[in-house]
């Protein structure tokens, strides 16, 4: 069995020739900053939830390399279809921190991104984003837009028929779509081993005739490199790719979950050594002169930016009740319009 693609190992050592983009210190620092920013957002979101100021929240701690790596390989005209744990990718694409807070705070306006207008909002029904991605890719193919649809889901999502039906049609129609699996080893309390007996989740591509690859999802360089290759293939009209990114869910499933009920701290702790920030920081220090000051400045900047966004979010008044109806249809049918009046007055 081929080893998962990796460039930077857990210690931050280069175990393979770096791709071009990863020789550039600026690029790597941007990736690093995006991951740090994501982690800061995560911490703040959890804190807000714990104090009753945010809804149930799914932290991405330890898995930042996946969605940041994926998003960083994408172009603006591509479309991102994330599950609920891919904040890093959304932020990279231009969704604002305020929008993310609004969304997780229970306000639909958080999905009305100023930024990537065609990107999908977070997908909660597991795996249902994959058929959407096939449809987005169909539109791109049909319109010759050169764009690619990029969906991410968890290891658990690969057990749903939706995943499989979508991958299958991407294969048949050679659609420009990339499906990325964030394999964080758990689906709430169900471990990867109970999700499928497949040796690798990327093997699920075989039954659809697509190429599948397993990579180290804690190495943002590997994630970006693999995604870039897949995007190139898609843009060249060669069809879709399945990429399985190996990572680990360091935190609870969501703030509503208590992982200590079903997994031991002993299982978790070794994974802290493999998480994506440590290794990239080590490499930056070694190869690009990243210093303590840089680190502190970055942390400070992220903290300030995230705190400010949280304040803005907290200061945002909820919508009026009538907003429940404003975008239900382009033209609200008359009997429902009457309900909107009732809601306003209730």
């Amino acid at each position, binding site marked *: 069995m081929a080893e998962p693609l990796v460039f930077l190992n857990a210690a931050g050592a280069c175990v393979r020739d770096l791709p071009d983009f990863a020789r550039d210190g600026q690029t790597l620092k941007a990736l690093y900053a995006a991951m740090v920013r994501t982690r800061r957002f995560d911490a703040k979101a959890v804190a807000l939830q714990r104090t009753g100021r945010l809804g149930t929240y799914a932290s991405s701690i330890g898995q930042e390399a996946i969605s940041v790596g994926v998003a960083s390989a994408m172009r603006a005209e591509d479309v991102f279809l994330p599950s609920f744990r891919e904040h890093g990718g959304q932020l990279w694409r231009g969704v604002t921190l305020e929008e993310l807070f609004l969304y997780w705070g229970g306000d639909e306006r958080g999905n009305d991104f100023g930024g990537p207008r065609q990107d999908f909002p977070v997908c909660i*029904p597991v795996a249902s984003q994959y058929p959407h991605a096939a449809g987005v890719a169909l539109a791109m193919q*049909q319109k010759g837009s050169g764009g690619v649809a990029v969906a991410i889901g968890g290891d658990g999502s690969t057990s749903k028929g939706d995943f499989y039906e979508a991958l*299958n049609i991407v294969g048949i129609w050679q659609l420009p779509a990339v499906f990325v699996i964030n394999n964080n080893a758990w689906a709430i309390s169900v471990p990867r081993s109970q999700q499928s007996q497949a040796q690798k989740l990327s093997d699920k591509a075989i039954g659809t005739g697509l190429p599948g690859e397993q990579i180290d999802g804690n190495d943002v360089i590997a994630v970006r490199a693999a995604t870039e290759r897949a995007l190139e293939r898609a843009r060249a009209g060669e069809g879709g790719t399945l990429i399985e990114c190996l990572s680990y869910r360091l935190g609870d499933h969501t703030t509503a979950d208590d992982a200590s009920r079903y997994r031991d701290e002993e299982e978790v702790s070794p994974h802290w050594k493999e998480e994506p920030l440590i290794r990239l920081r080590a490499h930056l220090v070694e190869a690009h002169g990243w210093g303590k000051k840089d680190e502190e400045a970055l942390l400070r900047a992220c903290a300030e930016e995230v705190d400010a966004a949280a304040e803005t979010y907290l200061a945002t008044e909820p919508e009026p009740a009538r907003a429940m109806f404003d*975008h239900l*249809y382009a033209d609200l049918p008359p009997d429902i319009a009457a309900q909107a009046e009732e809601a306003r007055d209730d």
Partner: protein
Amino acid sequence: MTDLNMIEAIRMALSRALEEDPDVVLFGEDIGIDGGVFRATDGLIQRYGSARVRDTPLSETVIAGMAVGAATQGLKPVAEIQFMGFLYSAIDQLANHAARLRNRTRGRLSCPMVLRAPFGGGIGAPEHHSESMEAMLAHIPGLRVVVPSTPARAYGLLLAAIQDPDPVVFLEPKRLYRATSEPVVDDGAALPIGDAARLREGGDLTLVSWGAMLKETHAAAEALAGEGIEAEVIDLSSLKPIDRRTIRASVEKTGRCLIVHEAPLTAGLGAEIAADLAEHCLTSLLAPVRRVTGYDTVMPYLRLEDRYMPSVGRILRAAHDMMEFA
């Protein structure tokens, strides 16, 4: 202007939409070279090519979900589910996504897709091929659900569905596909969605129905007329939204309402109409609101199918009861 049956009218509407709007794309099982199992898409792949008229693999979930994805990016997908009995796998995508994408993105993304499906019984099809589960769809906020009753209405309503900026489920009463023909002008004119059609005027009794059951409903109205009872016949046409005003206005005039549908009684769409009248027209009612519907059992295999379908006799018995009510 030629006489067309409903399947021809549907095909003409699809062709027109493909012709006029390059963003219209058709997909579904066997809709390509086979032209659809009922021939609704016959000839379209030859005319518009296999990029715009696409055979899918046997995957209803992805048919619905792909329509959602494509619709958000400027295509106008018109997807087909081969029979309504196989539409259940598409409900997740309809309810959880298609119907709420505009709302949950506060208008940023929308989902102008059409999902076509033949529905209803009466043609002696195998099991699972004769379902009428329109009430389940009509309960989903954010959807529109449309049922035509004649070739001309099928043409106009299907064009409307395709032009609609929101998701529409277009249910085709397959018993009517080839039942009758009428002149249909290929003028590209859409009929408004949301309006019921008054097919017959009368002052004694309002009969509300949709799709294929309008056949029995009309027959009953004829028979009643022979007895001097003038029934108003309303074709609901749009099952979501419901044209409550038209029905209320009619019942305020007649004082009696009888709803006819093929789907099972309990929690069928007839209940919504009766409930609306029980709230808004109570004082106009001269008789109980009655429903003549399919029974609350599974559509039987073909040998008993006729015994399941609401008969003219049952409609007449209910109508007579209502006229005699005091």
